């Protein structure tokens, strides 16, 4: 129903998905109340930023290095060689009937990922201070991106593991299809720890000094160089409270088809992650509002 001579509506410039003013619900800025506030829609809206932050960190990481991404593989491979020499040959630590190099490398895969993820993400908020104090986005994106970045390295190491298994003549069993589940458990473990550490680090820079030591201790508390079977039976469940136990055992079971996954230990690990993650989310979202002021 156009009237003659009516002026055409002002053409809207092509702008990405912006709604006309009247249609969009207003954004409300006010002091946040309540105990816990997780804005999942906002997180989804900023998924592309998550992608770009991961992409940035992957890109920047190996710029101006001689061998580039080979570092991703070299690090766990070197560790595996040292472990094989020290623990496999000198200390004669059992490896559940699997060749020790493969045994160690399968554990080093999630372990290297985990240590890189928490080393990187504990300083992620502080390292991105210039963004946090100048631009709005859901702050959760930052530790999330930092825990996801080392997944790229993990993928490269995984290819190395396949090569290693081929060399030692180990065929993957059907259990390998469950690997993504254990990978997810590793990711959630890293995220849970990162939420605490990154938020704490904004306020207490002590965290930066603690994390390398923490990672070192944590490795000895996880079955990286030794099998879980060395842990006395009655302590297994307690041992499983360390989520990396569940992750590493899961990786070994899924890749090497090692008999008998201790489901009790796995469940214990999953439970522990759930608790730490929930606590981390509460702590993080409570601290989040002050990040820009004190970072």
């Amino acid at each position: 129903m156009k009237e003659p001579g009516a002026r055409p509506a002002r053409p809207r410039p092509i702008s990405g998905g912006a709604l006309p003013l009247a249609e969009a619900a207003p954004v409300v800025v006010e002091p946040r109340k309540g105990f816990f506030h997780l804005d999942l829609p906002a997180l989804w809206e900023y998924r592309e930023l998550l992608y770009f932050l991961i992409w940035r960190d992957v890109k920047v990481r190996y710029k101006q290095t001689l061998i580039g991404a080979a570092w991703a593989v070299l690090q766990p491979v070197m560790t595996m060689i040292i472990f094989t020499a020290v623990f496999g040959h000198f200390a004669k630590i059992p490896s559940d009937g699997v060749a020790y190099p493969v045994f160690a490398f399968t554990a080093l895969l999630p372990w290297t990922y985990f240590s890189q993820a928490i080393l990187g993400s504990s300083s992620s908020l502080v390292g991105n201070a210039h963004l946090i104090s100048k631009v709005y986005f859901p702050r959760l994106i930052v530790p999330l991106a930092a825990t996801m970045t080392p997944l790229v390295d993990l993928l490269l190491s995984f290819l190395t593991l396949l090569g290693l298994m081929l060399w030692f003549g180990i065929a993957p069993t059907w259990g390998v299809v469950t690997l993504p589940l254990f990978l997810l458990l590793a990711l959630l473990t890293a995220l849970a720890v990162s939420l605490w550490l990154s938020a704490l680090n904004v306020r207490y820079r002590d965290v930066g000094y603690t994390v390398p030591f923490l990672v070192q201790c944590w490795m000895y508390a996880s079955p990286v160089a030794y099998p879980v079977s060395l842990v006395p039976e009655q302590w297994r469940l307690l041992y499983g409270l360390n989520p990396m136990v569940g992750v590493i055992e899961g990786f070994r079971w899924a890749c090497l088809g090692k008999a008998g996954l201790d489901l009790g230990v796995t469940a214990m690990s999953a439970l522990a992650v759930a608790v730490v993650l929930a606590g981390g989310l509460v702590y993080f979202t409570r601290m989040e509002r002050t990040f820009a002021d004190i970072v």
Partner: protein
Amino acid sequence: MSELAIRAENLSKQYRLGTALSRHDTLRDQIMGGLKSAFRRGGRAEQGPETIWALKDVSFEVKPGELVGIIGRNGAGKSTLLKILSRITEPTRGRAEIRGRLGSLLEVGTGFRLELSGRENIYLNGAILGMRKAEIDRKFDEIVAFAEVEPFVDTPVKRYSSGMYARLAFAVAAHLDPDILLIDEVLSVGDLAFQRKCIAHAKRLQERNATVLFVSHNMFAVKAMCNRVIYLSEGEARFDGAPEHVIHLYEQESRLTTAKWAQEMVGPDPARRPIRITEIELLGEDGRPRTVFDYGERMRVRLSFEASERIANPNFCVSFIRSDNVACCNFNMAMDGFTIPFVSGSGTIELSTPPLKLVSELYTAQVMVWDTEFERLYTAQMGRNFHVQDQLLSTHFGVFHEPAEWRWPAGEGRS
């Protein structure tokens, strides 16, 4: 409900000075602090001298398409206001409603990584500013052309000149197409051409009915761009209205502060200096206080000082600093051959300037007291603001203007 772009109600922000000053809290400090307060009776004292209100009950409404300038001196709460509106930090009290896609430029080139190429930084910065990848894909060529960096898109930006870097950063920001844009002092960086681009960009945004909130020190940019100005002072909105009125108010409220560059040399507290300026009065030739002077007028500057010790041969200097921080002229006793044997206690000094041939702009008087060799600085304080007004002469004419003499020898080139 009528359509508003922004509605702010009693926005307030309190900062704890403790957290602002000791930026690197350590666990040890926290534990010690905890112990101390445990031994101090009476629980915690939240409201104390350690907290300041950076923003106090600021309310206003902005309609779509308005171009609002926000002015005020350093620490008046301008940046805090923008940070709250752009959701970077939460208000302590109050609320604001914002309708439409919000873009905020608190800095140009946020998140640029030197190791990455121009192309990569366009995507990264765009995503940080809230653009979708598809949107950046579509605008990519336009951004590169606007920044004039075509041959270097795949070069790491650390090899860029600072001009190229700034152009690229601004180009990305300029292609963010928000309904509401918050700009903080972005215009104060960059050269004149760059500033013109910024102003043209803001005007373009306004043409498509975007709302712009623009924080600046530069009265003239505000006056040129905005149809409304909010004046913040000590966290409160003192005035909200037509630019001319607010700017006048701003001039009147100016008081003496220690010049930034001199802070380390003379210390922050004027009262602890051997001599300090207690008042700067800008007077017309008739001896009346003024804030606006015509081009070519003389000015009388009356300085009141207080010397807590005997100062031999003090060398009083007065400089006029333009609002864009260009020091335009300086008058000092040493060069004018005027000497005072000594001063002690309080007194006044008066200076009559030659006709001021400065271009039409806002200036601040800066007063310094040196020794005659310009080796020891006793005090340096920024004082009153004043305008020089002229129909024609703007900063495009440079710093000052004097008529020159022209000759045409033998009338050559007439055929």
